[in-house]
Structure formats: structure tokens, C-alpha cells
């Protein structure tokens, strides 16, 4: 431990990845990737979902081994067989899905793998020293954590701090942050960015993986863009967008140009839509109270209303009750109290099947868990909701002919890229899997459409398609409820935005409201100006 400390600050770490290639079967996830990370810099790794960023970083962290290429640390080629080797070489990583044991305390999580022990071979934990180490690191870098709190009791922001402290107690010189801002409020994001900056100033290098252009521009010293497993070669691009060494892009590159680099074509970042024409009240939620799986109140007295022909967006950091709210609406979770009405008819005790069939479409937030049955074919997934209804079948038997015909039709209509409707969904890309869900849910006659994180983990092309489908559904007179933790998505799609914080709707605001103010609301800060605001009728004028 002690020798690591001395190594820590004195020799800054310079990392080179040379020709890293990783294949999964026929798929080339990383194709000869070269990246150099200088000491003390914040290096952004920018790319679409599925571009291969995480695969690359997992190789750097020893979780995967490259098929070709080498990792060079301070001029010395290294082979990382496990994270143990990577940590020993001074590399730490904060994963997108936190690597924390929920039933352990903060101190136990941080100690794990680098425990302070006494009693020699008996290996008795020295909890006092472990705790002290945590507090020391926490203080040194200004990252407050409570060593005795249980992880499962902490909000995500705090869990992320624990992850960072965990890496820092191991005296890493290069810290990989994988999509760290996905779960944070805009304010928390700013805080994190400043932590990254101050870490970089102490000589540590940061690799910042993201697909959010704004953040890249705000913090990065240099940018490497990865597209379909390859680095986008800077040599093909005008010098204006390059950094001094001409190996990466400069943060001065305009946003739309970065987006084009990431996707490979010009993309519009805006959702195009006409003003909404709200009609009757379709969904009416009053006084809704819902508990989460642990019996803790997740939705705490929500009143909402969604009208035909409008998109109501719910903004908020993940884990503020959005999941439970949506699950209660579609009957997947029992409400403790409150009422849910669809066109004036109570949904209480109806059961998911009945609710869906009475005209509710539902795109669940966790596609691979709730949205599709990956082992099933595309055709089977497309009738997951209606398999026992004509023409697809009846209460006893299926009608494979009708199922296959309808599948072929919808594959074309919804632009699902698959070799055949009989292929299993697991062979499809994330975006196309999501299109299967969208196609299924939009094939029923709908009165209400609920889309929860509709474009999470989806490529830009599919995002555009799914967004246009949602707007199309709205224009057909369906009431649409969009839940997303990506504020940009909510702002782009919604006609009205409800901000959810700790199970309550803090305010309903117009999408024209400045981002910073919505951000404050997402953090639970209700200024006078934020709380007052508008009625939907006013905005649609």
C-alpha cells in the first residue's frame, strides 16, 4: 500500500492504446483502435451507443483481453489479465452500472479487494483502518461519503461518489468514467465535471466516456470519436477541429460537427414537430401513492393529467419514482392509494393484460428485461401482447400463419433490420430491438401511449425513427406520456414537462423554460419562479 502511495503522484501516467482489436464471434467490436492519454488531461471518448466504447475500456481495465494490439503504460507494454493488474498499473474505473455490493457498507465496499488486515495469515479485517482510509481519501478530494452507510440506502449520486473514492483509495493515476452523468441531475453533473477537472489538476488523467456533446465540450481537453468500433481518423478532417498533436479532436469543434463525426452523417439534434392540439383528458391520476420493491414510498401523492394529442414529458433523475409511477399505470405494480382513470374509467384492479388491451401502449424502460423476450423470434415478440386474440390465435391455440404474415408486414413498416422475422431478437441491435417493442405497442388501437426511456441505449438513427413515431402517434390524437432521464429528450418531445423529484411532481413547466431552471427542479430546488408556472392551455397557444 505504502509504495503505491509514493508512486502515485510522482510519476505521472501516460497511456497508449495501440491497435486494440476485439472480436465477439463475427462481430468486430473494436477495430485497431489507437488512443493516447497524456498525464493530467481529461480525454473524452465520444461515441454512439454500441460504438464499442465500453468494450474498449473493459479491455483497458482487464475485464476483457484484446485479441490484437497492446496497452502501453509509461512506455511499457502491459498485459492486464484481470482488474487486479490494471489497478496495480494505476488504472481505475467507475462503471456505468455501479460495482457496489448493495448490502455492504460504504467502507466495506471500498475496502473490498484492498482490505487492511491484521493477524497475518488469518486475515482479520481491520475495520478501523479501512474506515480511516475512506475518510482520508474523502477529505483529500472533497468527496463526502459516510463510511458506515449501507449502499442500498444511498441515492445514486452518493453511490457514484463512493465509486470514485473507491478508485482513488487505490491510488490510481488514470480514472475511467463510463457514462458517469447518465444518472445525475444537471447540477450534480456540473459538480462531477469540476471534480474531474480538479483531479486532472493534481496530475491524474481522466478518460471520460460519454455520448453527450455538451459535457464533452465543457470538460474535455481532447476528444477521440469512436464509430462502429473504429476511431474516426482525425487525418481525414480539417485541421481546425484537431488538437495540437493532430491525433484527436479539439473541444472547440462545433457540436453539430461532433455529432456528425459520431454518427457518420449530418443529424438534426432537434425533434421536428408542430404545436400540439390537446383534446379530451385521457389519463387522470390523482393522489397516487406507490411503494417500491423494498416497501419504501416511491410515488408520493402524484396528480397528473394527459390529454389526447399532447405529449406530457416527465423529467427527473432516475430513481425518483418514475418507474413505479409508470408501472402503477399499466397495472404492473399495486398502488397504495389514489386513483387512475382512463377516459373516466377506473383502472383499479384491472390487470396489465386488460389495461393494455383497453388502449394503452407501453414501452418499458428496460428493454432487454421487460421489453422483448430475446430467445423468441421477432414474429413471436410482435404478438407477445395479442397471441391469444384473433387473428393470431385464441384461448387454446396459436395461428402461426397469421403471426408470420403480420410480422413480415410490420418488419417493413417499422423498418426493423433483421434477416428474417423468424430470427431471434437477440441477434438484433439495441435500436432494432427497441423498434420491435415500438412496433408491437403501436399496433393496437391506442388511447394512451407510455414511453419510458424510449431511446436508452439506442443508435441515433433509431432514435430519430422512434421519436418521429411518438410524435406521429400524438398527431393521431393519442395521449402520450414520455418518461426520460435525458432532459434533452424530454425537452425535445414534450408539450408540457412535469418534473418529478422524490416521488412528487414538483412542477409542470413549458419545454421552453431554460434548462438550468428545469435542472434545479430536478434537484428538488423549487424557486418561486419555477413553482408558479403555467397551465397547458397557455403553452399551446
Amino acid at each position, binding site marked *: 500500500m505504502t509504495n503505491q502511495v509514493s508512486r502515485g503522484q510522482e510519476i505521472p501516467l501516460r497511456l497508449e492504446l495501440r491497435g486494440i482489436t476485439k472480436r465477439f464471434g463475427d462481430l468486430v467490436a473494436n477495430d485497431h483502435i489507437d488512443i493516447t492519454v497524456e498525464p493530467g488531461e481529461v480525454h473524452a471518448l465520444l461515441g454512439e451507443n454500441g460504438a464499442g466504447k465500453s468494450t474498449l475500456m*473493459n479491455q483497458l*481495465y482487464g*475485464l*476483457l483481453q484484446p485479441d490484437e494490439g497492446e496497452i502501453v503504460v509509461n512506455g511499457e507494454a502491459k498485459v492486464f489479465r*484481470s*482488474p*487486479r493488474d490494471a*489497478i496495480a498499473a494505476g488504472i481505475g*474505473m467507475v*462503471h456505468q452500472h*455501479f*460495482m*457496489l*455490493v*448493495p*448490502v*455492504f457498507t460504504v467502507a*466495506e*465496499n471500498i*475496502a*473490498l*479487494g*484492498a*482490505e487492511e*488486515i491484521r493477524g497475518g495469515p*488469518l*486475515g*482479520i*479485517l481491520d475495520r478501523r483502518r479501512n474506515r480511516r482510509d475512506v475518510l482520508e481519501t474523502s477529505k483529500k478530494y472533497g468527496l463526502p461519503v459516510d463510511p458506515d452507510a449501507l449502499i442500498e440506502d444511498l441515492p445514486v449520486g452518493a453511490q457514484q461518489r463512493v465509486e470514485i473514492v*473507491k478508485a482513488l483509495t487505490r491510488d490510481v493515476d488514470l480514472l475511467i468514467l463510463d457514462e458517469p452523468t447518465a444518472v445525475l441531475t444537471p447540477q450534480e453533473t456540473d459538480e462531477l465535471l469540476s471534480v474531474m477537472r480538479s483531479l486532472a489538476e493534481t496530475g491524474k488523467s481522466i478518460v471520460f466516456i460519454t455520448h453527450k456533446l455538451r459535457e464533452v465540450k465543457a470538460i474535455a481537453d481532447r476528444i477521440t470519436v469512436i464509430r462502429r468500433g473504429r476511431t474516426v481518423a482525425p487525418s481525414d478532417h480539417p485541421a481546425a477541429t484537431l488538437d495540437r498533436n493532430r491525433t484527436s479532436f479539439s473541444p472547440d469543434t462545433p457540436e453539430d460537427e461532433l455529432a456528425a463525426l459520431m454518427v457518420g452523417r449530418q443529424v438534426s439534434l432537434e425533434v421536428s414537430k408542430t404545436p400540439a392540439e390537446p383534446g379530451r383528458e385521457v389519463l*387522470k391520476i*390523482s*393522489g397516487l*401513492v406507490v411503494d417500491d420493491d423494498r416497501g419504501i414510498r416511491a410515488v408520493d401523492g402524484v*396528480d*397528473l*393529467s394527459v390529454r389526447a394529442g399532447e405529449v406530457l414529458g416527465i423529467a427527473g433523475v432516475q430513481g425518483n419514482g418514475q418507474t413505479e409511477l409508470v408501472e402503477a399505470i399499466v397495472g404492473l405494480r*399495486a*398502488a*397504495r*392509494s*389514489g*386513483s*387512475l*382513470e382512463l377516459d373516466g374509467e*377506473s383502472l*383499479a*384492479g384491472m390487470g396489465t393484460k386488460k389495461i393494455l388491451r383497453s388502449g394503452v401502449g407501453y414501452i418499458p424502460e428496460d428493454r432487454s428485461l421487460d421489453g422483448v423476450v430475446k430467445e423468441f423470434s421477432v414474429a413471436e415478440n410482435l404478438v407477445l401482447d395479442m397471441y391469444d386474440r384473433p387473428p393470431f390465435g385464441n384461448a387454446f391455440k396459436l395461428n402461426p400463419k397469421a403471426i408470420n404474415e403480420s410480422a413480415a408486414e410490420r418488419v417493413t413498416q417499422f423498418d426493423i433490420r433483421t434477416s428474417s422475422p423468424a430470427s431471434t431478437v437477440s441477434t438484433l441491435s439495441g435500436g432494432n430491438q427497441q423498434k420491435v417493442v415500438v412496433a408491437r405497442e403501436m399496433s393496437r388501437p391506442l388511447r394512451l401511449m407510455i414511453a419510458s426511456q424510449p431511446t436508452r441505449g439506442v443508435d441515433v438513427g433509431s432514435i430519430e425513427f422512434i421519436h418521429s413515431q411518438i410524435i406521429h402517434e400524438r398527431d393521431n390524437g393519442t395521449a402520450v406520456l414520455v418518461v426520460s432521464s435525458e432532459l434533452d429528450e424530454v425537452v425535445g418531445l414534450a408539450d*408540457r414537462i412535469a418534473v418529478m423529484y422524490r416521488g412528487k*411532481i414538483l*412542477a*409542470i413547466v413549458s419545454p421552453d423554460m431554460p434548462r438550468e431552471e428545469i435542472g434545479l427542479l430536478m434537484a428538488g430546488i423549487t424557486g418561486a419562479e419555477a413553482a408558479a408556472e403555467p*397551465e*397547458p392551455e397557455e403553452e399551446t397557444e
Partner: protein
Amino acid sequence: MTQVSTATVENLTGLAAPDRFWNRDRRLGAGVTVIGLVAALIFGPLAESKTARFTLSTDASGAALSINGQFGTILFGLIAVALGVVMLTGKAKRWQTLLLCLGIAAFVLSFLCWQVAGKFMPLIDTLSGSVEYALPLVLGALAGVLGERSGVVNVAIEGQFLMGAFGAALVGTLATSVWAGLISAMIGGLIIAAMLAVLAIKFLVDQVVVGTVLNLFALGVTGFLYERLMQPNALKYNQPPQMPRWEIPGLADIPVIGPVLFHTNVLVWIALILVFVIHFALKGTRWGLRTRAVGEHPTAADTVGVRVRGLRYVNVMVGGLIAGAGGAYFTLVSTGAFNKNMTAGAGFIALAALIFGRWTPFGALGAALFFGFAQKLAYFLSVAGSPVPNQFLNMLPYIATIVAVAGLVGRVRAPAADGIPYVKS
């Protein structure tokens, strides 16, 4: 739209919030009350109004606790009712577990008073019998604790018992040494554990499937070798020496507990020491922290450099050694020879003890003692000619476990990654 319309709030009861009145404590309280009523109102009238003697020895002689059978039956039944009612009121939240244990104990006492009325029950014999029956269960359950806390489900305890029992008989006879027998019993358990570990950890075969198949494998191999070797030539292959009973001078003179715990075979002490050691090791050592992490969130452990599979291998194998020692009980302590399928489902009761004891060493010990007591009681009652069929008492461990996993007695939660093979991303 933001305003709350109070008008609709009244007719919300339709949304049927799950009624939390019947929470776990109340359900348990109701249960205790009901069994108390059964004891007082059904057992009571059935009991004879004769003296029930609980002798403090291994036979009818010596000092005894005596009570009128019918009086005792009703008295303890009413005590159980009272305890149940206290639980029902939900006043003594902190003492729920204690009240539950007392309630069950009162019910058992009531039952005993009914059964023993006009007869006697030797307490020391009952207790040491319970401990003896519990012995393999504790060792088997500890094997389960080691495996499952690190994420490997072990339903092959039965197979490890059988291999242990067989190994102990064979080598114990050949070497005419109890200790050689014990060691080979452990090796027998290790063989099954190693197969489990390799198949489950390396080849990612479903752990419950492997465990079940390994049980059948062990049944077949030991049965085959028994019929080929031991049956034709029992003298040469199947007459193991018996484990000696040792006495700790001084401690053995403590009334009741002394003869039960301190004048017994070594295996009992080994088991008790293991319970303590594993408990403290899980809680307070680096190995324990890593084991628990690997059982709860292996990827998290892997990302900080803990060798997930290595640790699982070690734990499953050590578990095999312990379960094998548990198997030795059957041939070196209980009976003097190996017999086909002689463990007769004890491995599954050990599994039940593991679950009933919530994957903790002390929980497993408690559950094993409870199950051991039930078995001893079943034996005692069938000898004493009780009208209660011993088959039903022997069902007790199984039914108790079903009740436990069905969550009727609190939440039973396995380690989060239990049973899930670890595959790197």
C-alpha cells in the same frame, strides 16, 4: 392541471392498497395463538390426568421434573396463546423473535405433557439424541453455507454424505482406524464437491441440475460398490471402528448440558467449533468479506481484483470436506456399517436447515437442532407407543422448511448471486 382535485380522493379505496394490518408480526402472532389454542383445546382433553415425569437421566431413574399431564398440556397451551396474543397486539416489536421461540417452545412442552402423561421421558437421552441427529445436519448445512454464501448452490449435500459415509466405512475398516475413516469420509465429500465445482463454475452447468444429478451419481456409485465389495465380504470391507466418546473432566459433570455436550464424540465438538469459526470468519475476515461479496455481486468483486471463481472453488471444496465429515457420522457414529442409501434424505434436511437458518452458521445450527429434536421425538414417541404417527413428526423438517421459504415466517433471502454462474461480461 397541477391542482389537486380533492373530489376524487374519497373514492380511492377501490384501488385496494394492500392491507398492511396483517403484517408479518401479526401473521406470526395469529399462528402462535392458533397452535396454542390447538394445544389447550385439543391436546388438553386428550391428555391423561396422570403425572408426566421428565427424568434428568438417560432412563426412568434419578431426579425428575414432574407435572400432571393434562394440567401441563393445558397450561403450556394457554401460555402459547398468551404469547401469541402479545405478538398480535404488536406492542412488543423488539421481542417478536423471542416471543415466537417461546411460543413454539410452549407448544412443544404442551405436546410433550400430553404424550408423556403417565409415562416418563429421559431428558438427557432426548437431548443427546437430538444433538446426535443434528450432527450431520449441522455439518451438511455448514457446507451449504460456504458454497452458497459465495454463490454456488449445493443441493448435492446428500451425495456428499453418502460418499462420506461410504469412504469412512471402507477405509475405516481397511485401516482399522476411526481417524483414517474420518479423513477418507472428508475426501469422499471432496470428490463430489470437486465435481460440483468444476461442472458449475467451469462448465457453467446449472447448479441445481448438477447437484441433483450428483446425488444420483453418488447413490449409484456407493450402492454399486456396496453390492460388489461390502455385501459379499462385510468383515473385510464394512466393519468400521466406532468413534470414541470422550469426556471433558469437570465440564461433563454439569447437569444436563454436561453429559450432552461434554461426554460425546469428537465430531460434535468439531461441528460446534466450525459453527463459531465460520461465523466469525464470514463476518470479520478478508476471506469472509470477499466470500460475501462474491455471493452478492460477483462482478463488483471481480472489478476490484477478487478472484471470483477461485474463491468459489475453494469454498465449495472446503464445504465438501465438511459435508464428508458429516457423512462419517452415519457409519462411524450412528450405525456400525455402511448400507445402501443409508442417509435417506438427511442431506436434504441439511439443505432445509441451511435455508431455515437463513444461510448463517448459527441459524443453521439452530435449525439443525430443531430438526434433530423432531427426529428424536419421533423415535421416542414410536417407541413409547404414541398415537401420533411418527411419519408425521418426521415430516416436520420438510413442512417447516416449506413454511419458511414461503415467507410465512419472515423473509428468507438467499445471497443475491446464489446459483448464478459467473461469466465475465
